[in-house]
């Protein structure tokens, strides 16, 4: 029996989720199924594919076969993971120069458009896609980067894939996927000033665990989510992966449509009107059924920081470092002791007394213009006690920030203002935290060694990082915002 006969499904007759009410995710799924296997796995069509420097493994797989990229017009190359944030005119590190050259050569060979290192549109994939209008509601979007979940903020089914899957998309424009279950996380009410999307998502991960959403497509809903800007929505969907989900979603609405209008690659005029009419049908139907529901009250959420080495190790800034002796699970207690030893913290220590060595503002989680404005509003007229790096999410964000004078606020505070890239979030481009140093960071991962071998990372919002920069320790930003916009 051949592989194909073994798994043959019913072409073109995907089992729809029935005539009944459907969730946003059901609608996205149903619109993209090419073939479904009896097992429930489906071959789904991919609308948009981003590749970055790390895709060289996938291009090598393509080259090892017949070398054909079937839909080069749906693929876009963007340099972000390895690009230097300083001295771009001459890249000193030969390994990094080679990675960037490889991306240029691979995209050129296959007719894929590239936003390369010196392109004014360059930036982090998950910032550039939306700002160029490549990210739209109703699309399936993939990239060899787990934070592709970011694009779900527009009501797209967007998820990270590995190198073999990148090769599969390049060669077939499809992927085999098993339909995830659906979870809805509802946040109602109004948050306190100084509390926002990063605090929401860290609260959620602390509540459900770093594998709490594994196997689910998570839809964020409720009054507090609808009130978020697109930047805030992207921050939430970005960290769905840190909750264990492969994708996060927010229903498109007027906020979404206003954001998309006029973006370079987005539909225009009558085509945009037709698209918006279609997108208005995407939100989950009233009475649509979710496999799991979680609810949070926005007013009860305080600014959150992480203390450990997993994003689930997160607590309100007013709390103290937890005590492993208080746990009745030996395995968990051992893991907590390991985390505290790595982080150089002792149980019972107040989080607000943890002294930091440096700060980082950047990454696909929190380096959009709104994020930079939030940090600058805290830093304006103040000095940072520790060194720090501010890397805007894209070259376009950088220009806009400079037009608004935000760069001057960061520089006057004593922080370094550099070019856009993944930078100190993943520590691939040469920017890293020295071993043993503690960094207040707007990034998404506090894993061991994530920001460099031995680096100690505390995750928090841009405003909270700015507050830590000013005081030199983890700090509740709320009193520092009084009298400021």
């Amino acid at each position, binding site marked *: 029996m051949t592989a*194909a006969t073994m798994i043959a499904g019913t072409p073109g007759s995907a089992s729809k989720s029935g005539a009944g009410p459907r969730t946003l995710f059901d609608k996205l799924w149903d619109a993209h199924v090419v073939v479904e296997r009896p097992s429930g796995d489906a071959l789904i069509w991919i609308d*948009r594919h981003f590749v970055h420097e790390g895709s060289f493994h996938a291009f090598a797989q393509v080259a090892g076969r017949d070398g054909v990229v079937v839909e080069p017009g749906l693929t876009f190359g963007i340099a972000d993971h390895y690009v230097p944030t300083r001295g771009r005119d001459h890249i000193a590190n030969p390994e990094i120069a080679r990675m960037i050259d490889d991306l240029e050569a691979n995209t050129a060979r296959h007719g894929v458009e590239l936003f390369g290192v010196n392109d004014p549109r360059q930036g982090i994939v998950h910032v550039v896609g939306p700002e160029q209008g490549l990210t739209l509601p109703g699309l399936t979007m993939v990239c060899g980067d787990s934070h592709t979940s970011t694009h779900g903020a527009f009501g797209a089914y967007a998820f990270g894939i590995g190198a073999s899957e990148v090769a599969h998309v390049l060669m077939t424009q499809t992927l085999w996927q098993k339909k995830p279950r659906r979870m809805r996380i509802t946040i109602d009410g109004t948050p306190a000033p100084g509390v926002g999307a990063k605090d929401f998502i860290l609260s959620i991960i602390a509540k459900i665990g770093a594998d709490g959403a594994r196997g689910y497509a998570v839809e964020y809903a409720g009054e507090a989510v609808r009130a978020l800007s697109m930047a805030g929505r992207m921050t939430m969907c970005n960290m769905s992966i840190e909750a*264990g989900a492969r994708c996060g979603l927010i229903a498109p609405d007027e906020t979404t449509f206003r954001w998309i209008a006029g973006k370079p690659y987005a*539909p225009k005029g009558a085509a945009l009107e037709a698209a918006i009419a279609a997108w208005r049908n995407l939100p989950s139907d009233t009475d649509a059924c979710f496999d799991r529901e979680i609810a949070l009250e926005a007013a009860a959420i305080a600014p959150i920081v992480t203390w450990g080495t997993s994003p689930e190790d997160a607590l309100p800034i007013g709390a103290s470092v937890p005590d492993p002796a208080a746990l009745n699970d030996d395995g968990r207690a051992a893991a907590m002791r390991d985390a505290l030893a790595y982080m150089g913290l002792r149980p019972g220590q107040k989080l607000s007394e943890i002294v930091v060595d440096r700060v980082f503002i950047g990454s696909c989680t929190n380096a959009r213009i709104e994020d930079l404005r939030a940090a600058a509003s805290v830093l304006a007229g103040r000095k940072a006690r520790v060194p720090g790096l501010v890397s805007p999410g894209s070259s376009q964000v950088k220009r806009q920030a400079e037009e608004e004078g935000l760069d001057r606020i960061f520089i006057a505070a004593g922080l370094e203002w550099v070019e856009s890239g993944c930078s100190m979030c*993943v520590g691939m481009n040469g920017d890293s935290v020295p*071993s043993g140093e503690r960094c207040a960071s707007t990034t998404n*991962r506090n894993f061991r060694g994530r920001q460099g071998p031995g680096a100690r990372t505390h995750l928090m919002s841009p405003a909270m990082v700015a507050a830590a920069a000013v005081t030199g320790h983890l700090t509740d930003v709320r009193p520092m915002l009084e009298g400021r916009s």
Partner: protein
Amino acid sequence: MKPLTGVSGPACPLGLAGVDTDQLIPARFMKRPRSEGYGGFLLHDLRRDDAGIEKPDFPLNRPVWRGAEIMVARRNFGSGSSREAAVYALADHGVRVVLAPTFGDIFASNAVKNGLLPAVLDEADIEDLLAALTATPDLPVSVDLAEQTVAWGNRAVIFAIDPVWREQLLNGWDDIDVTRSFADEIARFRDADGARRPWARPSAKA
């Protein structure tokens, strides 16, 4: 892809929870081509001290488990980054099966595409197996993919694996060949979809 039917031999009790892909292979080793082999970087920063010397008490460094084709871990193994290099590091080191209660979603699919079995065991069974390996480091462990069983000592337990992934692993099937057998269906979908959702293709720049 190399088919996998089963593995018997020593099993390395990694025992850690939440081993993310940054641990499996730190980012700074990912610039090299796969052809150079990634096995030497597996769990690099946990496995070695700051001077790069192997820590003798780390399970993977113990002679009895150094060449183990089976690894046993606690929950959320392979969470985090989508980097397939994490799987390359395991595969190039010679690991063919990882047993854990839960796996990172992207890691698990990357694993299958490289002939590495991510076998899901109940948390209690994982704890039993870890305890047995602590007591008897050279205890032989057998994994049978066709039967979906793991056996050690006088115990045999069932593990979970997606049935499609099981077929792929058993047969060494390659996704791309399978998908290309649906070329006509894909072409039909593409054409119908282009009419249904004209806005889904990127517009030319204004």
